């Protein structure tokens, strides 16, 4: 065991940690239980799992508690935890067409096979602060459940529907996709993929992207800084079964659980050509962990933008994919808080040298400003 320095820096860090702990408790008498977060902060938990790249609602809830609800910190905690886990299996391909849906809408067709299912959505609620929630009690919860009589068994057994894009495919309305057929998807957490990225690497990067960053970029694309304005062919939210290959037994699967996913397929005008190929509608694709529609739609817009050539930032894959990761961006932005004494000293040294040589010219320049 080596020495442990007890110095100004060390003491400061320890004291700061104590203060943080103090602030986190909020001097409240009711510690927040992670389970409460998991059950009642569902959308935030889903967002953290997506950005953290780890489907683990209980870990995400714990991360949120620990991070005082800061999404960037919570996603960061999940990612760091993820680094310690060895990868034992790759799951079999998930078919979102087989999802048990809780919500499913289409903006392209009024009548889709199976019908539209509005499901749990804020879309048509009026955003009025509900002051009665201040006084909400356990009794209110149980009374509500009894009154509306939502059979959770039945919810769980919602059937799966054929995808809307299958209709378009059958009608021969989709453009022939020139996309590469990858046998084995790359794993961006296990190798650094080189640019230009394969489609699987792009999709993975987007799936781990930060919701706000992605919606800002997708917004820029549809607002005019990009050549896309898609229609949502289908947005579906539901549960997908996750299976792995049965160890030691080929062609047999082992069910290991389910994940909630949001999938979006956008339909883009036939005038927007992918790789200069015309002749049909082009799809954009988004698939994210949990219930996160904003991110899934943004992902579909960006996925399509990246497959389309253009001058706007959204058509530049390095620009988009290297700047949407919340752990990367929050880390580097906050690193500016670290001391830069040495480099600043070096800069001063240069500046003074120039000032000496030029007889104070840079100073005069600065006075003008």
């Amino acid at each position: 065991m080596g020495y442990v320095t007890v110095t100004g820096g060390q003491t400061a860090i320890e004291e700061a940690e104590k203060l943080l702990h103090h602030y986190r408790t909020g001097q409240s008498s009711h510690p927040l239980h992670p389970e409460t977060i998991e059950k009642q902060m569902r959308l935030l938990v889903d967002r953290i799992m997506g950005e953290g790249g780890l489907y683990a609602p209980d870990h995400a809830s714990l991360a949120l508690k620990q991070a005082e609800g800061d999404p960037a910190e919570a996603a960061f905690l999940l990612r760091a935890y993820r680094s310690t886990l060895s990868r034992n299996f790759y799951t079999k391909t998930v078919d979102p067409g087989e999802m048990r849906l809780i919500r499913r809408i289409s903006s392209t067709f009024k009548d889709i096979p199976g019908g539209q299912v509005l499901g749990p959505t804020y879309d048509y609620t009026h955003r009025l602060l509900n002051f009665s929630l201040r006084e909400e009690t356990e009794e209110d919860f149980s009374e509500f459940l009894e009154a509306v009589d939502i059979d959770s068994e039945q919810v769980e057994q919602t059937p799966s529907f054929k995808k809307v894009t299958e209709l378009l495919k059958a009608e021969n309305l989709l453009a022939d996709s020139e996309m590469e057929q990858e046998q084995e998807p790359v794993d961006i957490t296990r190798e650094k993929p080189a640019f230009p990225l394969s489609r699987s690497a792009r999709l993975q990067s987007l799936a781990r992207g930060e919701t706000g960053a992605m919606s800002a970029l997708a917004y820029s694309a549809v607002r005019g800084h990009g050549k896309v304005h898609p229609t949502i062919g289908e947005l579906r939210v539901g549960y997908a079964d996750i299976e792995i290959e049965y160890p030691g037994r080929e062609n047999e699967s082992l069910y290991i659980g389910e994940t909630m996913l949001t999938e979006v397929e956008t339909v883009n005008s036939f005038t927007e050509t992918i790789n200069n190929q015309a002749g049909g509608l082009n799809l954009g694709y988004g698939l994210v962990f949990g219930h996160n529609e904003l991110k899934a739609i943004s992902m579909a817009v960006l996925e399509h933008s990246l497959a389309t050539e253009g001058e706007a930032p959204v058509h530049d894959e390095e620009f988009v994919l290297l700047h949407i990761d919340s752990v990367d961006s929050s880390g580097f932005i906050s690193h500016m808080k670290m001391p830069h004494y040495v480099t600043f000293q070096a800069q001063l040294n240069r500046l003074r040298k120039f000032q000496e040589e030029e007889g104070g010219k840079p100073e005069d320049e600065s006075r003008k400003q």
Partner: protein
Amino acid sequence: MSPESSKRFRVSAYNFGFLDEGSKREIRRSTLKAVAIPGYQVPFASRELPIGKGWGTGGMQLSLSLAGSRDTIKVIDQGHDDSVNAVSIRHLIQSCTQVEMTRDSQAASLIQSRHRIPEIPLRKDQILILQVPQPDPLKKVESHEKKVKQLHADKDYKGMWLHLYEDISQWGDISISADYPSTAHERYLFAPSPLPRWDVPKLNHSEALCLLGAGREKKIYAIPPHTQVTPLAFDDVPFTTENFGKASCKNCGADNVYLDEFIDDETGQKTYSCSDTGYCHQRMAERRIQ
């Protein structure tokens, strides 16, 4: 470890060196390739660590992948052993490896540093690990990785030469103060990390292996021992290092070292002290003995 933090981080729940063995092996493989091609940026997957990206995750992954139980590690930030980030990184390395830590650069087998190289020349049995924010010097002149990779492959560095020339035409000299673009063994242009100019010549024909890790940018590169390192310069505008005039350290009196500048609160007078605190402490201790 304080009781507060041990409650937070249970060492036994994590692997030696935090990362799983497969991840550490991958990092070491990339490191070996980096050593084989001086200055060439080897891509690696880069794991998230419990410290922020941009806070030394590249250097940290190198340290964690290389650390063995017999190592002695020194961590410095800005030359300082007790700077908050150095303390934080040292703490984490120690928590998950239990290896011996030191402030004495000569006692260390691994030295992880940000922005400085220790003043005492390193030996061949030592490894210097530098944290790198931006591994590619060409990013100054071309922002796309795809194109930059091609430029390196073609050894096409005219963009950088032009950048330096324009700098001279505007300012009379090259304005780059830290992270001075340099060439490894007359082949790859590399970023020596934001070292002040002062430290760049220390890389030239160094006895020690220098590894550079950029976690966020997912690159590892190396300056192996006895590699020729040449800062880009023109015949008529040679590379120069920082000049502190007649200033010397107020604590140990050293004058041929990189100095931090201080302004006295009361007198407003400028004073200096060694940026390399380990070196400074050692000199002060030697003085007391004498």
